[in-house]
């Protein structure tokens, strides 16, 4: 198998998935799969292709297709620059497809636990993709950060789901939407679920993981930002919106978070020098818009949020792919300050990405114009200060998009550049064409957004974006945005100092510091415990025996003792057993004294053999025979190992004197252990026998199992699974021994 074949395979699968989703949505008109999954836990495997699911799965598969095509050329070059072999290619495509699959599953799932499972699957896929350059420390750390931030908050989602289940007795989302009543419980559950969604879509104060995740290869970033992972966060808000909107303060909280993210992301995007960092902060601010629209509430908010996700995904994926192509063309240059004037070398890319940039900046004749139109409408519907805030956010977007595009293609040339393969520009052009197509004929996109908005809003949303050539408020706001945007671009020298100070403040006192501090603290704590426990084997034994002893002691103290202990009668026939038991005890004590190992082995065997006698007196000839057999083999094994070890080493151990203080301490520990064992076994053995027992049944049934010996019937028949387990243990032990003795090479 050639590793490069992974790319076409991945692309074909992504294309097929896209076609299937399109077919399912347009021709089949959606559909539902509903299977009992774990009925005893009320879990159902329910998938439904509704409007919301169609929107996000079309994005996940469609942009996934563009990304895999792009990666077919990008990835071999990327690996070549890093001096890695092509054998790493299939891993990338595997995880992209896994990501795609879990995204599609997530958006279609209708069962809370199913949603949680797919939610975590996306986190796992993203961990491997962000950490794709695993030899780089930075990459590994970023992957871990993304996994921790989204994984820990995912637990909030699970808790929220369980709270809802406890209150309403179902995990089915449609049933919950119908049944749930506004109240403290719904508010708490909704807030927990919203936290999970906000952390995944990198909203304030969880935004710090996203810029770090830029350590991933560019196709991963493009995918992560536009169609998966970050999009999954706002998807979750959209999916649970019917529950969330029943609580007013939750909507207000979403407004605040959305505004905060718009501001932080927008301002920092204006200060970043590294291309992908700029785009990362832009993503934070763009999803801030979406969260803001959710917070505004109303039908404009619901449809607007859905439409915004489409428009942003198309534009942002293209811009990321542009950044990757530019870096490739300039031999690894990623800084805006060292780029510029590439219009001559990359004219095609310049035009293609220009479309997408125009879309992000919301210029007319692009799909982006309508995203802002809906955004403004939603803000106007709410009234108050919100229209002004909306314009401010749009101005920031306009300014940093211009900064990105003009910084690469216009101005002076600052670095060497060469052309890039067509496979790396065609996906950008295709996405750019879609951005323009949406600007010219918005109906299909609007229809999709409407269908998604209906699911989110849980009611029909008759909203149609269109061009209106009049002086209505939305158009005036758009014009104001362009004018103010140009002003912001031109006055850069006035505000850049303040913006950078803001960025530095975030580094000094931002939530990222808290993340690192808590990570460090937890690490130190676990190191402390680790050092306490595993200094050597003895401390390990002590950390098990010590707490166990305390627990057993507490158990003994708090158990009523009256009638709990019995000395037990000794009948005339019991004397042989009595003597044998005494002999076992004496032989056991004798193992303490021999210094030479061979003597020790022989004394140990004598304990075992006398124990066989005890077993025989207990009425168990089978047990006695097995004990004799095992003891014999054990003695042989012991002597065999002693032969393998050099005499010198053994003699050193034998003559190694044990200090008196340690002897006393060990004896004290042994006495305490023995005392506890005595108390536990005495109290247990003193329990009166039951009238009826399973054993009587076994004895009665043994002839029916064609056995004369009841014990063999139990082992081979009644409790045959136990014996299977036992054989497995012996088999594994045997494998282990063979491997150990052949120094790790079994074959």
């Amino acid at each position: 198998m050639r590793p490069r074949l992974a790319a076409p395979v991945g692309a074909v699968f992504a294309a097929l998935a896209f076609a299937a989703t399109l077919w399912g949505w347009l021709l089949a008109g959606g559909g539902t799969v509903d299977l009992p999954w774990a009925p005893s836990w009320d879990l159902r495997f329910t998938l439904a292709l509704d409007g919301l699911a169609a929107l996000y799965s079309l994005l996940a598969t469609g942009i996934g297709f563009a990304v895999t095509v792009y990666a077919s050329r990008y990835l071999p070059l990327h690996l070549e620059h890093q001096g890695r072999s092509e054998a790493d290619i299939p891993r990338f495509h595997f995880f992209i497809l896994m990501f795609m699959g879990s995204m599609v599953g997530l958006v279609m799932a209708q069962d809370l636990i199913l949603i949680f499972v797919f939610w975590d699957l996306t986190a796992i896929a993203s961990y491997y993709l962000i950490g794709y350059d695993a030899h780089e420390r930075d990459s590994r750390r970023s992957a871990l950060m993304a996994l921790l931030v989204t994984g820990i908050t995912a637990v909030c989602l699970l808790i929220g789901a369980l709270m809802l289940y406890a209150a309403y007795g179902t995990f089915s989302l449609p049933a919950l939407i119908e049944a749930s009543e506004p109240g403290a419980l719904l508010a708490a559950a909704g807030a927990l679920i919203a936290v999970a969604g906000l952390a995944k879509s990198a909203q304030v104060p969880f935004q710090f993981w996203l810029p770090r995740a830029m350590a991933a290869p560019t196709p991963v970033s493009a995918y992560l930002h536009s169609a998966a992972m970050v999009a999954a966060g706002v998807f979750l808000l959209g999916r649970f919106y019917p529950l969330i909107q029943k609580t007013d303060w939750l909507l207000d909280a979403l407004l605040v978070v959305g505004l905060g993210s718009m501001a932080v992301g927008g301002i920092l995007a204006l200060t970043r020098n590294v291309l992908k960092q700029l785009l990362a902060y832009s993503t934070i601010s763009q999803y801030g818009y979406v969260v803001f629209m959710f917070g505004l509430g109303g039908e404009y908010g619901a449809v607007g949020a859905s439409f915004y996700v489409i428009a942003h995904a198309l534009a942002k994926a293209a811009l990321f792919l542009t950044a990757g192509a530019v870096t490739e063309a300039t031999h690894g240059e990623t800084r805006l300050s060292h780029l510029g004037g590439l219009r001559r070398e990359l004219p095609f890319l310049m035009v293609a990405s220009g479309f997408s940039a125009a879309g992000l900046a919301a210029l007319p004749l692009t799909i982006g114009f309508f995203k802002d139109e809906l955004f403004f409408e939603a803000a106007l519907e709410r009234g108050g200060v919100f229209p002004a805030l909306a314009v401010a956010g749009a101005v920031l977007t306009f300014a940093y998009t211009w900064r990105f595009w003009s910084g690469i293609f216009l101005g002076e040339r600052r670095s060497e550049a060469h052309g890039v393969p067509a496979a790396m520009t065609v996906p950008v052009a295709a996405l750019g064409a879609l951005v323009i197509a949406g600007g010219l004929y918005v109906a299909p996109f609007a229809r999709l957004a409407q269908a998604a908005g209906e699911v989110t809003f849980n009611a029909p949303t008759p909203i149609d974006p269109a061009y209106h050539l009049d002086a209505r408020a939305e158009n005036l706001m758009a014009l104001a945005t362009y004018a103010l945007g140009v002003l912001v671009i031109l006055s850069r020298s006035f505000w850049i100092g303040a913006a950078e100070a803001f960025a530095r403040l975030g580094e000094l006192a931002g939530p990222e510091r808290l993340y690192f501090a808590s990570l460090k603290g937890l690490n130190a704590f676990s190191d402390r415990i680790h050092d306490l426990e595993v200094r050597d084997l003895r401390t390990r034994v002590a950390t098990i025996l010590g707490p166990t002893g305390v627990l057993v002691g507490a158990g003994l103290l708090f158990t009523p003792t009256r009638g709990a202990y019995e000395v037990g009668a000794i009948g005339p026939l019991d004397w042989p057993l009595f003597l044998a038991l005494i002999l076992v005890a004496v032989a056991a004590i004798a193992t303490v004294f021999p210094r030479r190992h061979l003597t020790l082995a022989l004394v140990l065997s004598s304990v075992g053999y006398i124990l066989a006698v005890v077993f025989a007196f207990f009425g168990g000839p089978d047990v006695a025979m097995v004990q004799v057999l095992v003891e014999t083999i054990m003695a042989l094994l012991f002597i065999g190992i002693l032969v393998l070890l050099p005499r010198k080493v053994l003699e050193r151990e034998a003559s190694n004197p044990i200090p008196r203080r340690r002897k006393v301490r060990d004896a004290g520990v042994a006495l305490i252990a023995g005392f506890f064992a005595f108390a536990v076994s005495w109290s247990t053995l003193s329990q009166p026998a039951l009238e009826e027992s399973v054993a009587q049944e076994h004895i009665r049934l043994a002839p029916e199992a064609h056995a004369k010996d009841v014990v063999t019937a139990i082992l081979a028949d009644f409790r045959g699974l136990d014996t299977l387990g036992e054989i497995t243990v012996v088999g594994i032990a045997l494998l282990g021994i063979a491997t150990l003795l052949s120094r790790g090479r079994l074959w």
Partner: protein
Amino acid sequence: MILVSALTIAVLFGVGSYLLLQRDLIRVVVGIILVSNAANLFLISAGLSRGQAPIYPLEEGVEVSDPLVQAMTLTAIVIAFGISALLMSLVYRVYTSHLSLNLEDISEAEVREEESIESREVAED
């Protein structure tokens, strides 16, 4: 009889834990074997009845020893044997890589190794 059984179990367990605390790895293995012997004895003496062996033909009117605990003890003996054999070969393997059977030597070597790993990590930072 109950008291005597309990005392014997206690002695086996106590001596076993004494040996577990030793520095000599072979004595540690012996300690584990003694502890598992204590467990086996505990199992068999926890039988609900004691009398003739549970093998047909059974004598009428005489109590039959509890066959269930015997079956369980049998399983336990075999598993304990497997584990002890594995431990013994582990001890041998430890000897071949550290050339010592003394826990103190081995944990010193471990600490040294860990410190060298840590210092390498610090250097990477």
